[in-house]
Each structure stands twice: as C-alpha cells, then as structure tokens.
C-alpha cells in the first residue's frame, strides 16, 4: 500500500526543474511519482523531458497541451479568451509542436486523461484541469467549496488533484475530502521568486493525510540561456528570471492577478 507519492504538473519543457524535482522526490523516498499533464510549452527543447520521465517511471495523465501536440492540433487548447493571451500561447505552441519528435508525440497521444490512485485508505483522482473538463481553470479565488464537494461526490473520491492554472493551492472541504492544485514545474507562480513547485502527498500510520508543497530551486539562469538560444520570446524569459508572469494574464481572477506585478 502506498503512503507517500509525489504529484507534479505543468512541466512546460522545463527539463532542468523537472530533473531537480525528480531527484528531490526520490530523496524523500516516494512510492510513486505522477505527472498531471502539460509536458510541453513555454520552455526550450520539449524532447528533453521524456527520458527523465522514463528514467523515474513517472506515470502521466494527459493535459490539454499533450492532447494538442500528440494529435497535431492547431493550438494548445489552453482555454484563454484574450487575444494577447492567445498570441503568446500560439508562439510557444508552434515552437513546441515543431520540436517534439513523432515518437514522443505518440506517447502524448496515448496517455490516460485521469488516474485513480489509492493512498493509504484514501481514493485519489488525478487529472489536469478538472475531472469534468481537461482545460477548466479552477482558481482558488473563484471556486466555491460546495462546487468542489460536488465534484468529490460525483467522482466518489477523497481527493482531487489538478494542475493547469499554474498556481498551487489546496483546501480541505470536509472531513476526509480535499482538493489540491499541485502547482507547476514549468514557470514560477507569479510571486516574484524563481522557484517552482510540486506536491507531496503522505499518509501516516494513523491515516492522517498531509499535503506539502515543495519548492524547487533549480538553475533558472541556464534555462533562460537555452530559451534565448532557441529564440523564445523575451517575455517568457523575463518570467523565468524574475518570477513575475508577463503574458497570459487576462485569465487570472482579481485576487490572483493582484498578487503579481503586471
């Protein structure tokens, strides 16, 4: 029976942060590592994340980005509504599609969209945006607790884990009912620091569930150099080195937007 797992998501081609996170998780003695999708986008050299996922036997669920790249669709299906947000999203999508090998695209196509996992006595549902829609944005400040309870009841699980929005958060909505957004490894979370985050889920011998957000301090300068060499937009590089989002901002609700600089 598993008692400690790592959940990571939103890699966005940040192979340097991924490697650092995987090493960190292994050091903590996890029973398994799960990735909640969106392997590509934003960062450089999308093919470099796949050997790492294989080496650490990471079990993935498919994000909207993976579905798009896997099937060679026209855009990332991120769900943005603002023209400027979509402009920048398209630049990173076109780059990622052009630089992902056919072999890896086949892997993306074949990933399951959800995984049911047992952790101690608890039933967990791992998905990308929400269990009902792969690219749904469940922000902390715009998601009521009774909506989360509705999802937990509908899918008959104790915990739902997602990523997609790019900002980690968690809420216990009832006794033995939790929602957690595990954060993303691909870019900082708009807080002015350069670290990225993954999530550790643990159950102790008394069946208490513990949710821990783990910061990963990686070589972001090297990532920035690689992004520059690949000709990716300066706006993306700025986010990596400053920790502030400079694109795809219109999708943020007021509370989350106010925490950022732009």
């Amino acid at each position: 029976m598993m008692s400690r797992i790592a959940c990571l998501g939103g890699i966005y081609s940040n192979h340097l942060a991924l490697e650092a996170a995987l090493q960190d998780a292994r050091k903590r003695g996890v029973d398994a590592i799960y990735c909640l999708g969106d392997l590509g986008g934003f960062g450089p050299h999308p093919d470099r994340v796949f050997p790492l996922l294989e080496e650490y036997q990471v079990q993935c669920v498919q994000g909207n980005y993976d579905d798009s790249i896997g099937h060679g669709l026209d855009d990332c299906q991120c769900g943005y509504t603002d023209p400027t947000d979509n402009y920048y999203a398209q630049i990173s999508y076109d780059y990622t599609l052009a630089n992902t090998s056919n072999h890896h695209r086949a892997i993306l196509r074949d990933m399951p969209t959800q995984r049911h996992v047992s952790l101690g006595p608890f039933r967990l549902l791992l998905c990308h945006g929400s269990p009902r829609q792969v690219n749904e944005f469940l922000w902390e400040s715009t998601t009521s607790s009774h909506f989360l309870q509705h999802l937990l009841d509908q899918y008959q699980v104790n915990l739902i884990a997602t990523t997609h929005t790019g900002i980690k958060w968690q809420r216990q909505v009832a006794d033995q009912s939790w929602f957690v957004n595990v954060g993303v490894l691909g870019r900082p979370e708009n807080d002015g620091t350069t670290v990225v985050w993954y999530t550790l889920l643990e159950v102790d011998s008394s069946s208490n569930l513990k949710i821990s957000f783990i910061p990963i301090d990686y070589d972001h300068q090297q990532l920035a150099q690689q992004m520059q060499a690949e000709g990716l937009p300066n706006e993306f590089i700025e986010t990596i080195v400053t920790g502030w989002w400079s694109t795809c901002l219109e999708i943020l609700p007021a509370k989350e937007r106010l925490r950022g600089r732009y």
Partner: protein
Amino acid sequence: MPSSAPILEEPLVRLSHLDHLWFQVAGTLCNLTCHHCFISCSPKNDSFGFLSLTTVERYLQESISHGVKEYYFTGGEPFLNPEMVPILTTTLQYGPATVLTNGTVLKDEWLTTLAEAEANSVYSLEFRVSIDGYSPETNDPIRGAGTFQRALDGLQKLVQFGFLPIITATRTWPDSEDTQILQQFTATLEGIGYQRPRIKLLPTLQIGAEETRTHGYRDSERISTEMLTDYDVSQLVCEHSRIVTDRGVHVCPILIDAPASLLGQSLKESTQPFAVTHGACYTCYQYGAICTNPSSPSGSASPRQQAATAALRETGRSKKP
C-alpha cells in the same frame, strides 16, 4: 381535439450543472437610462424590484446543495439596492462574487467595507464597470450626458481601493474596429492611473431599448435544432446558469422580460431544459460565453473554437473542434 399539424421539435438546452447563479439584485431600476439596455432599465422602470438580503441568503443557502461555483449580481444598478454591501459581504462567505455596476454611485464607505470583506475572504470580489466608449463623445450618446466622467471617477475610486475592475464595453461599432478601440480604451484607462486595465467586449442584444435604438431580431435570426448538432452548448449561458429576480428563478440574465424565462420559485424547480427560441439566444449562440468573466471561460473554448464561433457570426453555424 387531435391536430394534424406536425409537431415542431424545439431546440432544447439542458442545464449541465449550475455553475453560475445570478441575482437581479436591483431589478430594472437604474440611475441611468442607456439607449442600448436590453431590459430597458431606468429610474422609473420598476417592473422588477430589489432583492432583499434575506431573499438572497435563502438562495445562497439553497445553492450549496447544487454545488454552485460563482455568484453574479446585476440590475439595473446594483448599488441602488440599500442592502448591496451586506449582500456582497455575505456572498463572499459562500463563494466568489462579481457585481456589474455603472460605477457612478459608489461611495467610499461602501468600498472600505467591501475591500475589507474581500481581504478576509478566500474568494475574489470582481467589479465589472460598464463604459461604452473611450471618450465622452463615444460613451455619452449611449449612456447619457456626463456619464463617461462619472464612470471614470468610479473606476479611479475602485483602483484606489485596491480593486482591479473589469471594464465591459458593448460593441456599438463594427467587429473590425475592436483592436483600435481596445487600444484607445487602454490609453484612457492608463491616463487615470489604471496601469493594468482589464477589458471585456460584449455584443449588443437587439431587445429592450436597443430594439428602438437600432433594430430587433429578424425572423431568420433564431437557433434551430439542427444548428445545435455538434455545437458546443456550454457556450450558452442557460447551459450552466440561472438568475433569481423578485418573481422567481429565470433561465438567464438576458431574457428576464420574456414570460417563458420564468422557470420556478426555487433552484430545484428551475433546472429543466430551456427552448432557445428567442432572438437574443441567437446572439448568445453566435458570440458564446457573453456573460461570464474572462477568468471563467465556459466550455472548452479554444482559440480554434472561438474562431469557429466568430466565423458563424457570418454563416450561422459552428462545430466542436
């Protein structure tokens, strides 16, 4: 008596889940008389009245078992309702709240209370401020003399109190001018110290006062059953929303004047499918997600899908990706 007339199938839209609960909190009472208002709100239009805090609370309580995700408040002008501030502070204990205002009647003491309530809540309080042009010359002919400056003053006040209001502008210009007009809006807003303006453009709805200002819907501007085949119905407000007025629960914020829109007295009584046979349904179908905040796009509207929706403004048809 048996009839030999064929039974015409109506285009029905099912409520998939009650994500958004709206409140017509000021009825149709407004301090302004905008020429494009789709429910003809004015200082004298009391066909719908205020909702009390007690009524709102009753529906907030009922909304828990429906798993409602977000709450929206509209009018009329919501801040004419003397209980608007406690209504919003109470709502923030249940979930995220958005209020649609014309920005012209906001008082400092209200904003002090609301800023404090939002700071103490895990949820966002969003203000959506209606301005229909980037200058007095473009706004005031629609919204009334002096309203541009008064709305701008209200916006400035909201920004000073630490809010990030969303400006909503009804598109009374050709779609092709959007980019240029958005730039002019941004310049105007930056000019009053709003450094990261959020702007949402809305289509006109050819009902209410707008029907007089321009024209109503043509008979051909209707959704047919066939048009819903392979269409992403989550783009339609009635697929995920309902609205409470002082008459009961209606299907959506746009159609409250239509008798068929009143579905029941409780949320439980109002979950039945709705026949999207009204002219305004056609606009909802064409543009998609016209009532929600940018942070809560309904459905899986990808740019491709949005492009398809845009294309159907010309052709009258859209497909899922």
